[in-house]
């Protein structure tokens, strides 16, 4: 009964979304004014029904209702509660339902909260949202129904992929989806403004919180996903340039560019068409992100087995979305008036530079990700990996970091080079000093990690410079946000460079009782024991790590065997210290009783994710600061009219 309710709610939500689109289009035509008032309530109702459908799916998973095909294929009655719950979206159909649910809720939020935009622009925005939603509803209802029943219920479910049985699953996919959906809302605003020829600061201010919000979630999703892959896969790496990682990075790059150009539009009324174009690109990238992962044409850990028909459906949808977005942009960009101008040496100029670098990186990542697909169509199999991505994006990322360091120190509209040089002198001095010291004290450091460390210091110093000689109490919240986010980038950069440059690795076959040295640590291999968990058994190694006179650490890496589905995974044991992480993996044993052990000492690796969270936190401060400031005039306006 729950499954039927869910399906009925999904159909109703789809119909309401069609109605939202139809009402929106009719309301904007001459004489359709009477319909203007009907669109907002429809958007709210649509969200309510899709939420019911999603709750129904969660309920089915919590009860492990095996008569539902999706539950039988992806769940198991013996699975821990959290994974039953999160397992609702740890599969293809469920994750698409989550997407459309978030989209519906975002639409309802726009419909009930947004009051600054002209009514017609807002209605066009909601119609655009409905059009995006319809594609997802069609895909769910016709090609991936999550509520399909089985004729005969199996006695037990097939279980969830053990790699996904991790608290990360409850957090990582929804965060990224919030980000993708937020970008689609920003895109809908752009469509609305294009349709009603209303591209200007008001539109930018309405769109900015959604871009910021989406960007915060994408930052969190990427950071969390990186850490999850780092500890779960047991390879000791934090970024693999896997197609799916790229699929989340590309929308982030586009959103970062959009975030900065929307600020120019909101503050200075410049870069109008540019900002709209970036909204189109960011939306296209989030669709590519969602659909490349879901279509299964990319081979990756994330690509659940998907049938080819579904892949075709997805690619058609993708072409429709991106083609439609670009067509609308092409048709209407001529009506967007030029914004106000600026000198090359100015805040705007630096932000243009930022946008260009980000776009270049985006293009390079996109080409590298799609290249294997293109050559495969020509019958040649290639793989594109870290050698390509690091080589090409690394230098541009450093140039971007330099632009990021300088930009906030420039004045809007026009600035003088000599004054800028004076403001940036101290950070450059610090970077030069760091370069000098590193070359002298750390011989053999490769060029990219070396520059990474140097830039991290210089950029870190420069990112604090906007606070110099300022009354810190009166500094607006969004300025704090910018400073913290930029500092976060420097911190993450330092972590990446340090990990790349200074990691120590040992791979040995050892008997219990032996001691292995790695970096400053000496690790004793004490014992191996069999242990048992709720739905797995494991071999657990016990290691004691010592460094200097500090208290020894106990690490217990495991090799786990899951029974349903039968899979082996290795659970790394990681000890976190202030200056880095000791990362240990237990491998296999051989006939002579030796066990493979892989040990890494990774100095300051945690800075990577600390930096990521700082960036997201900075975004949050900026979001709160902006919403707070822009709230006040409206309240005054309402009081005046009351």
């Amino acid at each position, binding site marked *: 009964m729950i499954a039927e309710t869910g399906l009925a709610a999904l159909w109703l939500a789809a119909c309401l979304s069609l109605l939202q689109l139809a009402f929106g289009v009719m309301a904007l035509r001459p004489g359709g004014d009477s319909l203007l008032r009907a669109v907002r309530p429809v958007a709210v109702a649509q969200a309510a029904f899709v939420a019911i459908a999603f709750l129904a799916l969660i309920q089915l998973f919590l009860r492990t209702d095996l008569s539902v095909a999706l539950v039988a294929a992806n769940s198991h009655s013996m699975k821990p509660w959290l994974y039953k719950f999160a397992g609702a979206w740890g599969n293809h159909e469920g994750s698409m339902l989550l997407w459309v649910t978030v989209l519906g809720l975002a639409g309802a939020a726009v419909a009930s909260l947004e009051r600054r935009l002209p009514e017609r622009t807002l209605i066009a925005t909601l119609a655009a949202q409905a059009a995006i939603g319809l594609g997802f509803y069609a895909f769910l209802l016709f090609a991936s129904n999550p509520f399909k029943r089985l004729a005969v219920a199996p006695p037990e479910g097939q279980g969830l992929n053990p790699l996904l049985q991790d608290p990360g699953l409850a957090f990582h996919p929804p965060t990224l989806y919030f980000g993708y959906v937020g970008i689609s809302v920003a895109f809908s605003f752009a469509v609305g403004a294009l349709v009603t020829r209303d591209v200007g600061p008001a539109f930018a201010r309405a769109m900015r919180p959604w871009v910021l919000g989406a960007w915060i979630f994408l930052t969190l999703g990427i950071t969390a996903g990186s850490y999850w892959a780092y500890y779960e896969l047991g390879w000791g790496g934090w970024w693999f340039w896997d197609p799916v990682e790229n699929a989340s990075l590309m929308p982030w790059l586009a959103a970062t560019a959009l975030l900065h150009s929307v600020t120019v539009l909101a503050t200075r009324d410049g870069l109008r068409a540019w900002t709209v174009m970036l909204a189109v690109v960011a939306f296209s990238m989030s669709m590519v992100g969602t659909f490349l992962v879901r279509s299964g044409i990319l081979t990756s850990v994330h*690509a659940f087995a998907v049938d080819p028909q579904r892949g075709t459906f997805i690619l058609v949808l993708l072409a429709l979305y991106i083609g439609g977005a670009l067509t609308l942009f092409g048709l209407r960009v001529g009506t967007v008036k*030029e914004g106000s101008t600026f000198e090359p040496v100015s805040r705007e100029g630096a932000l243009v530079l930022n946008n260009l670098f980000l*776009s270049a990186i985006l293009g390079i990542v996109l080409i590298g990700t799609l290249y294997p697909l293109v050559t495969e169509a020509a019958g*040649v199999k290639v793989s594109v990996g870290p050698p390509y991505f690091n080589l090409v994006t690394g230098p541009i990322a450093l140039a971007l970091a330099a632009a990021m360091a300088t930009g906030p120190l420039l004045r809007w509209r026009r600035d003088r080079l000599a004054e800028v040089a004076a403001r940036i002198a101290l950070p450059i001095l610090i970077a030069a000093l760091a370069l000098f010291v590193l070359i002298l004290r750390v011989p053999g450091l490769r060029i990219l990690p070396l520059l990474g460390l140097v830039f991290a210091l210089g950029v870190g110093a420069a990112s604090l410079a906007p606070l110099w000689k300022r009354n810190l109490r009166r500094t607006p919240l969004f300025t704090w946000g910018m400073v913290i986010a930029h500092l976060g980038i420097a911190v993450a950069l330092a972590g990446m460079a340090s990990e790349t440059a200074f990691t120590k690795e040992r791979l040995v076959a050892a008997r219990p009782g032996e001691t292995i040295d790695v970096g400053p640590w000496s690790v004793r291999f004490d014992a191996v024991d069999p242990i048992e968990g709720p739905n797995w058994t494991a071999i657990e190694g016990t290691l004691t790590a010592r460094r200097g006179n500090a208290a020894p650490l106990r690490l217990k890496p495991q090799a786990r065997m899951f029974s349903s589905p039968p*899979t082996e*995974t290795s659970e790394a044991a990681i000890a976190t210290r202030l200056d880095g992480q000791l990362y240990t993996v237990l491998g296999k044993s051989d006939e002579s009783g030796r066990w493979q052990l*892989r040990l890494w000492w990774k100095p300051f690796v945690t800075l990577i994710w600390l930096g990521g969270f700082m960036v997201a936190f900075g975004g949050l401060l900026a979001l709160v600061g902006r919403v707070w400031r822009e709230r006040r005039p409206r309240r005054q306006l309402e009081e005046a009219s009351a």
Partner: protein
Amino acid sequence: VKPKNQRLGLLILAIVCVLGAVLLAMSALRDQAAYFYAPGDVARDGLPLGRAVRIGGMVKARSLKHKKDGVTIEFLVHDETTNTIKVRFRGIPPDLFKEESGVVAEGRFQDDGLFVADEILAKHDENYRPPEADGEKHRSGTLQ
């Protein structure tokens, strides 16, 4: 500056920048993309020396040997042709790695034909098979 001219300037700048990125990417791909070879391809086309490549096929039965250090393995990879590639790998092989099942390895050939793998591709889902390991017919190698 007139607004129109500035907009034109920015447009040209953007196009130049994106074109530059595309050209850079294409030239880097020429050197950095790893092409896929099956044992039959190597026998036909010769060893692709001096660049990272991927090889794939099936791990030959009873060919897996553990070296004395306990962390290095050697095995033979074969395909539907009678050719084989000898592979050496230092590390912990993925859980699904075993004889008579598909394998894809990334690394470099030595002059003597030994393939030194940096990585054995592991996909952790039992439903997942690297497409290269399906033994399907494919052409490989040249993309000039």
